[in-house]
C-alpha cells in the first residue's frame, strides 16, 4: 500500500491509512495504548522522511501509494498526543465532549 521506501511501515498501513479525521479519531478511541505505541514507535522516526518524500509530488495529484502515506502521517499525528501527552486514548478531562470535523481539505 505504501511507497517502497516505507515498506517498514506496511504492517500498520491496513489500520492507519485512514482518509478522514473523524475516522482516525474513532480508530484512536477504539485502539489500545499498546497498539498506538507500536505504531508511533515505528512511524515517528520516519515522519521527516515521509514529508520530504511527499513534497516531491503535487499535493492534489498524489499517486495511490503516496496518498496512503499521507493518510498514515495524519494518523501518526492523531496518535501522537495519546502517546506523548495523555497516556490514554481520550483527552484527559474531556468528559463526554466530542467535536465532529465535518469539513476538511482533500487530501
Amino acid at each position, binding site marked *: 500500500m505504501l511507497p517502497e521506501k516505507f515498506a517498514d511501515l506496511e504492517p500498520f498501513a491496513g489500520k492507519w491509512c485512514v482518509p478522514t479525521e473523524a475516522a482516525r479519531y474513532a480508530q484512536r478511541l477504539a485502539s489500545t495504548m499498546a497498539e498506538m505505541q507500536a505504531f508511533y514507535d515505528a512511524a515517528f522516526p520516519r515522519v521527516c522522511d515521509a514529508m520530504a518524500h511527499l513534497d516531491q509530488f503535487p499535493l492534489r495529484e498524489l499517486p495511490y501509494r503516496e496518498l496512503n502515506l*499521507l493518510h498514515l502521517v495524519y494518523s501518526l499525528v492523531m496518535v501522537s498526543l495519546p502517546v506523548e501527552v495523555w497516556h490514554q486514548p481520550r483527552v484527559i478531562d474531556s468528559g463526554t465532549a466530542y467535536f*465532529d470535523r465535518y469539513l476538511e481539505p482533500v487530501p
Partner: protein
Amino acid sequence: MADVAERRASWTGRYPELGTGLVSYEDSISPEFAELEREAIFRRAWLNVGRVEQLPRRGSFFTKELAVARTSVIVTRDLDGQVRAFHNVCRHRGNKLVWDKTPRDQTSGFCRQFMCKYHGWRYGLDGQLNFVLQEEEFSGFSKADFPLVAVNCEVWEGFIFVNLAREPGQSLLEFLGPMVRGLEGYPFHLVTERYAFRADILSNWKIFLDAFQEYYHASVLHSQQQVPALRTFETGFKVPHFQVSGPHRLLSTGGWKGVPRHLTPPDQMYPIESATRAGLMGPWQRPDIPELDPARLPAGINPGNLDPWSISNFQIFPNFVILVYERGWYLTYHYWPTSHNTHVWEMSFYFPPARNASERIRHEVTAVVSKEAGLQDAGTLDGTQMGLESRVLSEYPLSDQEITVRHLHKVVGEWVQSYLRGGQAARA
C-alpha cells in the same frame, strides 16, 4: 491617589462601569431568561452565518438553521453576484423551502431557482415567486405579491451577517464599531483552507463563550500543553492586553511567559511538534505571503502593540469569535443556543491553502492539537452548568483578567433590559 494608581494598573479599573462586585450567572441557568434572549439579542443583533467562500459562484446557496430564532435562512449569491438572505419558508403553505436529507439538517449547493418539495412553487435567486402550479386556480392572485421574506444581509470582510429585525437599529458597520473594524484589511480571502467542527454542548452558550475569553484557566486546565518539567501552578498565564468597545471585547497575548511557542527549545515541547514544526499556535514557519507579515497587518489586529504578539481574540457580540494568529492563520467560533442549558458550537480553522504535503501536515497538527485543548474546555462545561444550576451559590468573584466574562454578562443583561423596557435594541 493610591486608589487611582491601582485603578490604572488593573484592566477592570479602566472600565469602571463594569464594576468589581460579585457576578450572578442566573442569566445562564434560567429558561425564562433564555426565552428573553431570543428576542432581545438574537432577533436584534447582527449574526455571522458564514463566509463568501461558501458561495463561490452565482446560484450558490447554503441554509443556516437559527434554532434560537426559530427560523432557517437561505443565503445565496444571486445572478448579479449579490449575497442575499431569505427566510426558508414557502409562501404557499409555510413548508420549509430548501432542505436535502431531512428538514432539520443544513444543506448547500448550486441552483438556478428554489423549488418547494410540497407543491412545486419556484422562487428565483432574488426571492421572486416565478412559478405556481395551476396558478389559475388561485383567485385574485398575483405572484408579485408573494416573494420570499427577505432577511437583512450584509457582507463585511467576506463574513456574511444577517439581522432578523424588520428594521435593524444599526447598520452592520455601526454595530461592529471601531475596535472590531480594526480587522479590516486582514487578508481573509487568502486564508481559505478550512477545517470545520461542530458539537452539541451541555451548557448555556455564554458559559462556553466565557471559557474561551479568558486565559486564567490555561495553566491549570491545559497544564499538559507544557512538557511535565515546565508544569507549575505557581505562576499562571497573564494576558497583556484587553479592550472593550460597545458590546464587543478583545484580548491579545504574546505567548507563554512572553515566549512564542515556535521559539521554545525542543526539549520544552512535545516530539511531534518539533518533528513536524507545528503545534497549538500554528506552523512554526509563517507562509511567505507578504499580506500575512505582521509588519503589514492592519494596526487594529494588535492594538496593544504587543511584542512578541501571538494571538488577538476578537469577541464579537453576541456569539461570534475570531482569533487571529501571528503565524499566518485564523480561527472562528460560533455559539448557537438550543435551550437554556444546551447549544450547538462551531469551530473553523482557516489556513492559506497548503502548497505541498508538508504544509498540509502542519495544518493537520495544529487542527488536531488545538481540538484536543478545546475538548478539555468543552468537557468541563457540563460540570460548570451543573454547579451553577444547583443554585448553591448565587454570586461569584472574577479576577482582573476575567474582565471579559464580567463584560459579556453585563452586556447581555443590558440588551434584555432594553428589550423589556419596550425600546429598540441597545446601541452598540
